[in-house]
């Protein structure tokens, strides 16, 4: 990375959270845990490309450099600007998610990142939720990651409203107020089945929604 690039990257690292927070008024609510300097996987609902940015901006500045978002390679590797943002500014882990084999490789990348003592921001739904339900079923990667890394805290996170700010397919953002709620960490129980853990993880995320069922159609 050239001097200009690294200067630009560090400026953006300060500027982007400020912009994100002023558009969305994003408030961090630490409901089930405190912001601490320890290894964590934050797993959240996914409604927009801006999701990881909101969580990342909601963290205290000291935690940001070691917290890496996990994002889809198909979107973020397209074009120089996106690539610069995702690699140099946010130091994200980009993963392929199309085929079974690619997903296995992706899991390895995540394990490697955790081995380097980083924390991760993860969206276990696998894709942005455009349905009327609050959450899509979680992919099993979250379970495998939790089994392989019992020393890491898995923190459920609910992002409120972001998908109304910029829904999938729309280009004009609407400045609605968003909030990021951090819940109580969960871990895989002894002999807990994969499906049970995933269901528990999903419930932990949905339980943080400020007003239950708001986005569902009656």
């Amino acid at each position, binding site marked *: 990375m050239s001097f200009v690039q690294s200067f630009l990257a560090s400026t953006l690292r300060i500027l982007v959270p400020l912009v994100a927070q002023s558009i969305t008024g994003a408030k961090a609510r630490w409901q089930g845990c405190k912001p601490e300097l320890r290894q964590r996987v934050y797993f959240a609902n996914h409604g927009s490309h801006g999701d990881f940015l909101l969580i990342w901006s909601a963290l205290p500045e000291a935690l940001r450099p070691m917290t890496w978002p996990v994002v889809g390679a198909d979107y973020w590797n397209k074009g120089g600007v996106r690539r610069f943002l995702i690699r140099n500014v946010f130091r994200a882990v980009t993963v392929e998610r199309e085929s079974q084999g690619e997903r296995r490789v992706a899991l390895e990348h995540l394990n490697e990142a955790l081995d380097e003592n980083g924390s991760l921001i993860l969206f276990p739904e696998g894709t942005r939720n455009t349905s009327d339900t609050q959450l899509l079923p979680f992919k099993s990667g979250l379970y495998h990651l939790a089994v392989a890394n019992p020393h890491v805290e898995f923190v459920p996170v609910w992002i409120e*409203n972001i998908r*109304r700010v910029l*829904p999938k397919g729309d280009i*004009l953002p*609407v400045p*609605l*107020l968003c909030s990021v709620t951090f819940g109580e960490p969960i871990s895989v129980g002894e002999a807990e089945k994969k499906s049970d853990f995933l269901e528990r993880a999903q419930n932990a995320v949905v339980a943080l929604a400020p*007003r239950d069922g708001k986005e569902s159609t*009656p």
Partner: protein
Amino acid sequence: MDPAHYLLFGIFAILAISTFVGNMLARRQLASGPNPVIKNLNARIKSWWFMITLVVVAFLAGLPGMIILFGLASFASLREFLSLLHTKRSDHLALWVSFFVILPLQYYWIVIDWYGVFSIFMPVYAFVALPIVAVLRGDPNRYMQRVAEVQWALMTCVYCVSHVPALMTLKLSDQSTNPALLIFFLLIVAQGSDVLQYIFGKLLGRRKVAPTLSPSKTWEGLIGGVAGATLLGGSLWWITPFNVPEAMALAFLISMMGFFGGLVMSAIKRDLKVKDWSDMIAGHGGTLDRLDSLVFSAPVFFHVTRYAFTV
């Protein structure tokens, strides 16, 4: 000296006294342990310094200042309101148009002093345009509810609030009065009524006015607040084109409309299952929690004044 100078001096004197009293109360209760009411009181007073300074700066900047201040206040309230609604993806364009087309245009009509369009633009053209924008995505699910909610948000946060800076465009029969001071009259009476209701309610409040809508509103607070605000309004006749009885009558009207505005907004908050509109202003809640007493009183005060006191 210009009456505005006396007024500004008086406002800051009252603020300084409140800060002094608030600090004294805080010091006295140090011994008996922390008291949330006094803590909240001091947070409120601190935010009042900030809000009043904003209004004074806007006043000194003239019409553009007031347009920017209340335009931003409309923006912040609309944002709080729409954030809590049950809109869907198919409403996205309608929301965008509300923020970035309808809101700026409504304030633009004030800048160019086009009263005719100012008064019918939202009730007629926005009313017709929004359902059209919302229907383009072809989603009939809860259509009626979604469109009506967005329109209510716009009418309260943008249309009603825009009548505050519009007071500056009135051509008063009494030409010696600065119409910008009508804004101070409205704000002082409406907010003064809120503050007096809060004080009387905290000191004497026993019987609740509307327990199902707002737990904090009491008969004692209401009567004391409205009576106090009526007297307060009467005592401000010298900054207005009104005589003392007229000023008192208008102040009574403003504080009653303010009370009902607050009650209606409380009912909406209850319906949406929140306590405050947001937590933007420390001690007060959201912007809309502060503006709720202006939502109904501003257009009524504007039109009564326009009917009876302009050329």
